[in-house]
């Protein structure tokens, strides 16, 4: 299945991971990839390496989207609410957003929960009707 946007995520031996970059001088991570100028004010580096970001993290916050977003979002008709998670990655020390897997909403979520990335789909207006994306899912039996 075609990705919703090229170059944001990829499958590996350990599962799906987001594709970011890392400054080769100061170690700062970026998502989506940054490959021009490091944004750390104390670093003038223009050197970056591509990295697979951590596949798991701790839930920082979350919400249920309860009304239909405008285009370019392609919504089911009738609209099906979905959850959005903000997850803290420990190694990268950054928070990354994403949709949560179908069937999991605010009632099932608590800050501090262990979350992992899994493949998911988004509706699309193209011929295939769907595109691939990343989604967050609580780790089974994950501790708070």
């Amino acid at each position: 299945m075609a990705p919703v946007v090229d170059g944001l995520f990829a499958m590996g031996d350990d599962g799906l991971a987001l594709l970011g970059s890392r400054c080769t001088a100061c170690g700062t991570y970026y998502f989506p990839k940054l490959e021009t100028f490091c944004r750390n004010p104390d670093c003038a580096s223009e050197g970056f390496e591509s990295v697979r970001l951590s596949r798991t993290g701790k839930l920082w916050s979350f919400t249920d989207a309860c009304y239909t977003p405008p285009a370019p979002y392609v919504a089911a008709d009738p609209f099906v609410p979905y959850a959005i998670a903000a997850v803290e990655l420990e190694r990268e020390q950054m928070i990354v957003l994403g949709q949560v897997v179908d069937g999991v909403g605010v009632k099932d979520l608590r800050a501090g929960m262990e979350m992992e990335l899994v493949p998911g789909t988004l509706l699309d207006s193209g011929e295939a009707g769907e595109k691939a994306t990343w989604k967050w899912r609580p780790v089974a039996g994950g501790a708070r």
Partner: protein
Amino acid sequence: MSGEIAILGVGMHPWGKWGRNFVEYGVAAAREALADAGVPWRDVGFVSGGATMRCGYPGYVAGATFAQALGWQGAEVNTSYAACASGSQALAAARAKILSGQADVALVVGADTTPKGFLAPAKGERPDDPDWLRFRIGITNPTYFALYARRRMEAYGDTPEDFARVKVKNAEHGFTNPRARYRKKFTMEDVAASAMVADPLRLMDVCATSDGGAALIVSSLDYAKRIGKGDAPRIAAISTVTPTFASAIIEMPDLATDSAVAVPAKSFRAALPAKAYEEAGIGPEDIDVAEVYDLSTALELDWIEDLRLCGRGEAAGLLRDGATRIGGRIPVNPSGGLACFGEAVPAQALAQVCELAWQLRGQSGDRQVEGAKVGITANQGLFGHGSSVIVKR
């Protein structure tokens, strides 16, 4: 302090969805401010406009557009664009001109006409645009406000009822404000009955976009004394600092925060008033009244803590105790805030200063904060723009 300027006059066109040209609102506000100041238009040496991006070329050159509409009289003009902080940037430009001795009196003005319905990104397939990308995966503006709100619930134990209390308080404050758009005493039940937008935020927790215009006449302290207004409220600080990397909070329209691997994470919202306090040489204990940017009800609670009016996680307690109501220890948003106005981007930061000027002059009628001598504003928009202004008398 030598860095101060005087606020001689203030004016606002009422907020609403009037559907007229933005120039009308700006001119109405400017004329009201001029009359309030008792300053002839020809005495204004500098016109500083907040730009609007939604009203074509006249909006990009708003300073000149307003100057022409009021009648070209040879003043110098400036236009500032800084998203939600445009008005404060325009005010900062006027202050620089006055303090450097290049102008005695300046008009600062911002106005906007907003489209109907929700804001949406530009059309087409544009995966390199972070704004397009986040909408494509279903992350709207209320998503960000909801993430902040839910974080408060998880970290501090705030409840949806606390957020509704902010709306009820601000609705009471703005009820008799003639410039407010929504003048109705909404109840906890009204908020709870409104549609859920982004859990935990309901429709009545999130602010709308509005038409409106606000203007200030500001001058050197010498000029103010010469015209017998030496006791006018003064601008004691204007902070428009950028965030400091690594910015700790997920910001619209990003999919991720900065990584704090190399340098520690910092709060942008807290940095804005910190600079203002430093510039004015005062602290949060000196503040009598605050106007903060309540894009959502929960965000008002974040701002109260960023202004250091209480400790982290204590704002909901302050609210429940009635401390942030008019008559309480530290009234917040006596104007009614964005909850009662909606947001008119280039005018909104100036509207906050207008309210503080009225409060400090004791002219706020039913919403007067008794004995207010020092007030502070706080506001934040996209792409590292924000402001905090301190007014004192």
